[in-house]
C-alpha cells in the first residue's frame, strides 16, 4: 500500500437482497489524480460512489477514503470530502452569498474564513454582479460552476463529482474541466463519474464498470492500446457489448 493513495478499495461489495449492485471492486486512487469512474446506467457506479462518501453501508469488503475506514469512520470521511451530485443542488431561493455562507457553515468554517472564501470565489467565477441575486435566476452553466466551487469550499482532500456536466453546453463543459484541472493541480483528488467519453480522455486514469464489476482500469492511452481502438467511446462499446 502506497501512502499517497487517498482512496483504497478492496473487494468492496453491495447487495440489495439477492441483487449484487457492486461486485467485489478493487482499486486505488492517488493523491492529486483525476480518476474517471465510467459505466452505463445501472452498472453500479452511483452505488459504489455512495459507499465511498459514507451514505451507504457496504455489505462486505474494505475501503479507506482520505485515511478513514468507510465502515467505522464515515463521519470523518464526510469532513474531508466534497461532493457534487448530478442534480444541481444549491438552494434556488437563496442568494449566491447566502448559499456560500450556508454550506461554509455546515462544514464548520469560521465566519471570517467564509467571508474570505466567498469573496475569492465570487471574484474567480466573475459573479460580482449577481452575488446578491437568487441562485434560481442564474443560467445552468453558472450554477454548475458555483456548485463545484461550493463543493471545494472547505478545501477537501477529495472531491466526488457525480456526472457534473450533464446538460451543460460544450463551452461551459470546457470551462468546467479547466476548474477540475486547477483543483487537481492544487493537490485535490478528483473522483468523477461521467457519460461523456470525450471527458474520459481528460482523466489521468479511468475505470469502466459493467454489471457491478470493474472490467477495465488504466490510463486512457493504455486502454485504447489494449483494446486496439483510437477513442474511449470504442473502448466503452467493446466492453459493454462483452
Amino acid at each position, binding site marked *: 500500500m502506497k501512502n499517497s493513495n487517498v482512496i483504497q478499495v478492496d473487494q468492496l461489495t453491495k447487495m440489495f437482497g439477492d441483487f449484487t449492485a457492486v461486485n467485489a471492486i478493487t482499486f486505488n486512487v492517488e493523491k492529486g489524480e483525476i480518476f474517471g469512474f465510467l459505466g452505463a446506467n445501472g452498472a453500479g457506479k452511483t452505488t459504489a460512489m455512495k459507499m465511498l*462518501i*459514507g*451514505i*451507504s*453501508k457496504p455489505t462486505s469488503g474494505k475501503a479507506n477514503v482520505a485515511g478513514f475506514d468507510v465502515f467505522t469512520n464515515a*463521519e470523518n470521511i*464526510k*469532513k474531508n*470530502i466534497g*461532493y457534487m*451530485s*448530478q*442534480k*444541481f*443542488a*444549491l*438552494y*434556488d*431561493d*437563496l442568494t449566491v452569498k*447566502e448559499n456560500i*455562507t*450556508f*454550506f461554509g*457553515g*455546515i*462544514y*464548520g468554517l469560521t465566519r471570517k474564513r467564509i467571508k474570505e472564501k466567498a469573496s475569492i470565489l465570487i471574484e474567480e467565477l466573475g459573479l460580482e454582479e449577481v452575488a446578491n441575486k*437568487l441562485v434560481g435566476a442564474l443560467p445552468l452553466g453558472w450554477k454548475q460552476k458555483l456548485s463545484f466551487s461550493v463543493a471545494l469550499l472547505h478545501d477537501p482532500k477529495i472531491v*466526488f463529482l457525480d456526472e457534473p456536466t450533464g446538460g451543460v453546453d460544450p463551452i461551459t463543459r470546457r470551462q468546467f474541466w479547466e476548474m477540475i484541472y486547477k483543483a487537481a493541480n492544487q493537490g485535490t483528488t478528483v473522483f468523477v463519474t461521467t457519460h461523456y467519453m470525450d471527458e474520459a480522455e481528460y482523466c489521468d486514469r479511468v475505470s469502466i464498470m459493467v454489471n457491478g464489476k470493474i472490467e477495465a482500469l488504466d490510463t486512457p492511452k493504455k486502454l485504447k492500446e489494449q483494446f486496439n481502438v483510437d477513442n474511449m467511446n470504442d473502448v466503452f462499446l467493446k466492453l459493454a457489448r462483452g
Partner: protein
Amino acid sequence: MKRFIGFIKKEFYHIFRDRRSLFILFGMPIAQIMLFGFAITNEINNVDIAILDHSKDTTTEEIINKISASKYFSINQFIERESDIETIFKKGKVKAVLNFEKDFSKNLIKDNKATVQIITDATDPNTANTISNYVNAILQQYQKELNKDITITYQIIPQTRMVYNPELKSVYMFVPGVMTIILMLVSAMMTSISITREKELGTMEILLVSPIKPIQVIIGKVFPYIFLSIINAIVIVVLSIFIFKMPVQGSLFLLGFESVLFIITSLALGILISTISATQQTAMMISLMGLMLPVILLSGFIFPISSMPLPLQVISNIIPAKWFIIIIKGIMLKGVGIQFIWKETLILVGMTIFFIGLSVKKYKIRLE
C-alpha cells in the same frame, strides 16, 4: 451549535421567500377562524318561514305574531293553498311552513285542542330539527299563557341548564377544532413538504454527505415550524378571546403546554410522512388525505364521536386530534386542570414517542 443556527436561518429564508407557504402559515389560520366563527354556524337566525292559515282567526294571529316577533324566524310569505307548499320549498328560500287547520280558535274552545302542522325542509336535517324544536317551544310557551288561570294537579317542570356553553354558541365548538386543524396543517404538512422538498431538489443528499448529522438536519428543519406553530396557536387563542368572546376558563400555561405537546406530535407525524414520500406532491396528498380528513371527520370536531358506529369510534382513538380536542375543550370551556386530562396527555406523549421511533427506524433503513 453555530452550524445549527446557520441551518435555521436558511430555513427561515425558505419560508419567508415562498408566498405559498407564507399564506398557509399566516393567512390560513386567520381565514379559517373567521370562516368558522362567522359563516359556519349551527345556530338559526331569521329563518324564512311561510304561513298557510286556513282559519285566520285571533288565535292563529297571536301565534303568528309571536313567531315573527322571535329573532329566530322571519315570515317570508303567506300562502293560500296546500299545493303552494311544495312550490315554495322548491324555490329553497323558505325552510318551514306552518299549516293551521280550519277553525283553529273554534276547535280550541270546543274540543280543547287544535292542530298546527309544522312542515320543514329536511334537506338540511340539523336545521330542520332545530326549527321544529324552536317552533314547538314557542307554541308551548303560548299554550302556557292560555292556561295560566287553570291549575294542573300534576306538573313536571323540566329546568334545563346548559353548562359550559349556556348560549350554545357554535364558535365554542369550532375554535378548538380549528386550532387543532391549523396546528396539524402547519406542523405536519409544512414540515413534511419542506423535508421532501430537499429530497426532491437533491439538496438532502448534499446535506447527508456533509458532516452535519441527519438528526441535526431534521431538528433544524422542524424547529422553525415549532416556533411558527406556537405563534399561530397564540393568534388563534387571542382572536377567539377578543373577537368571539370565547372564554379560557383554565390555565393559559396548561393550554400552552398542551399545545406545544400537540405541535410536537404533529411534527413527528410530518417527519414520518416525509420518510415515506419521495416528492412534495405525495407528502401533501398524504397530509391532506391521511391527516386532515380524519381530523375533520373522526376527531369529534364536527360529528360527535358517541353517535358514530362502533368501528369508527374505535378508529377515532388512534387520531391524535381527538385527544387534543378533548384536552383543549376541557381547559378552555370547563377550566379543568391537569388532574382531569392527564390520561389524554399521556396518550399524546405516547403517540409522539411512537411516531418519532418509527421515523427514526424508517430513516435508518433509507440510509442503509
